[in-house]
């Protein structure tokens, strides 16, 4: 397992270098002068010159990249133009709502997907199976923002059961905090549940046809014993693969969900920074999101080794 970890980490290094180069290049892709884009044309030339010096834009591009990288490896991702605060502080302040949303969404998705996927596979070609596959299709084709507005319309506007926007910290306000996150978590979680349901159903159907399942049944193991004890772990590898592939979609979904429900998370920070043309903040947050995404994919890769020992040996 140690070798697998080292191998995966080594493979990540060149990708990380290219990611930093890509994020650095973002500022230079701006048509025209990035300083003019960030600040109003009428801004004081002295202020513009100061910002240009501070961002190092008055130096050759290779020098700028090396200086930027030297700061990045020390944990200095620059400062927001809007509030002057370091990017790291901006992000760390917004991290809690995002993590709470991700955790709750993951819980919703697993609570929905596992029963649906298992029932669909075990009761194949029945009404329950058709309901499961229809749900999966519905979830995959439904954009996050539309599902969010549908949930707001039904549970917020019509039934008035849940708040339609805003954030209350569940760690401080308990029940009220949880209520503020129910609709965002369902928006994000149901989309993920759809993909997991579909994958789990097909991988369970494949595993149910294996010889060891027939042997277990012949030994008198109950159907649910076969599923829980033998089939589920073997059917998990495609599910973990899909979870890894869906991480990007989940993060993108979180950006939209936080925007719709006015949650003060990292996703909302990206959107706000983009529209404020706060490029140092955009660069910093995008770099952190990409590094987090790479780290999550690394964990997914290592999970394979845990689920299937053959991958460790290879």
């Amino acid at each position: 397992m140690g070798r697998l970890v080292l191998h995966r980490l080594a493979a990540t290094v060149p990708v990380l270098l290219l990611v930093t180069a890509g994020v650095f290049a973002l500022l230079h892709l701006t048509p025209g002068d990035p300083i003019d884009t960030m600040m109003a044309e009428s801004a004081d030339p002295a202020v513009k010159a100061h910002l240009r010096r501070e961002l190092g834009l008055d130096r050759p591009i290779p020098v700028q990249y090396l200086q930027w990288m030297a700061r990045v490896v020390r944990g200095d991702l620059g400062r927001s133009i809007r509030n002057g605060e370091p990017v790291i502080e901006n992000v760390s302040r917004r991290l809690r709502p995002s993590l709470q949303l991700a955790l709750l969404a993951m819980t919703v998705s697993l609570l929905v997907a596992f029963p649906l996927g298992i029932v669909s596979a075990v009761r194949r070609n029945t009404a329950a199976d058709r309901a499961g596959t229809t749900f999966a299709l519905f979830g995959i084709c439904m954009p996050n923002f539309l599902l969010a507005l549908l949930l707001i319309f039904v549970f917020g506007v019509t039934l008035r059961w849940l708040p339609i926007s805003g954030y209350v910290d569940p760690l401080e306000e308990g029940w009220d905090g949880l209520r503020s996150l129910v609709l965002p978590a369902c928006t994000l979680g149901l989309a993920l549940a759809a993909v997991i349901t579909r994958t789990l159903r097909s991988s369970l159907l494949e595993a149910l046809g294996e010889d060891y399942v027939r042997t277990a049944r012949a030994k008198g193991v109950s159907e649910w014993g076969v599923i829980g004890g033998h089939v589920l772990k073997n059917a998990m590898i495609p599910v973990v693969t899909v979870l890894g592939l869906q991480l990007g979609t989940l993060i993108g979904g979180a950006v939209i969900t936080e925007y719709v429900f006015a949650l003060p998370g990292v996703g909302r920070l990206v959107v706000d920074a983009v529209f404020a043309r706060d490029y140092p903040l955009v660069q910093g947050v995008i770099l952190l999101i990409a590094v987090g995404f790479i780290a999550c994919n690394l964990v997914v890769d290592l999970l394979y080794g845990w689920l299937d020992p053959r991958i460790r040996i290879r």
Partner: protein
Amino acid sequence: MDGSTRASASAEPGWRALRRAARARLAPFGALVLLAAVVMALGAPVLSPHDPLKQNLDNTLARPGRTHLLGTDNVGRDVLSRVIWGTRVSLLAGIVSVALAAAAGSVLGLVAGYAGGRVDALVMRAMDAVLSFPPLVLALALGAVLGAGLTGVLVALGVVYTPTFARLMRGQVLSITARDYVDAARALGAPAFRIAWRHVVPNAAAPIVVQASLSVAFAILAEASLSFLGLGIQPPQASWGSMINAGRGYLQQAPWIVFGPGTALFVTVVGLNFVGDAVRDALDPRLTR
């Protein structure tokens, strides 16, 4: 056409593929939706009952009725007309961004697979780097630096989808160049470019077409998401995503502003998924086994 000609025509790979596509259970629905979307996009000036940009402040938030089948929005514009015109933006964004990605990705994958060595390593690590960004976040960042508007969105989505095609093409190139007929062409002295053009590209085309047909639906969703966030085509021009965003403030008084374009978007994406599945079944039946 005599019997033998008919038999030989029906045995051609193209006909077999078409028959397989038509047999897919939900393909007719998908094809119908796609046809309707194309007709709406092309015939928008004739089909739309009202001017999609014309405001009528005396008739704002009007319920769906005879004059306005899907009601009016907060400045009195006809929602149905805007949905019809929005079809153009969605289809254009879906098709053009995927075409850009398929072209760029195929060239990069072809070069990487054919050149091998350092060129291959550099191109593929660059593709891995692009894949290291969550797609919507990358599109958002690129859209931000390229500026709001349809062109920025098309380029951003093109970049986001390029690595998928590059990986696919590289895999195809590696597999095809190891076959006997490519060895034979080399032995006959065919130059690399001719081998790539005459033997590799035609044989690698089917998986690229399958991937492209499956990607269009997701590109439409991505364009709608970016327009919803305000990065796509700018008001007052209509796009489904921006219409939904504009309508969310009136969800209580006029839900039709959101659910008119929302239904069009959902049905189009479902239909395109069915078409994509049918194309996959037709061109690459191994994938469905």
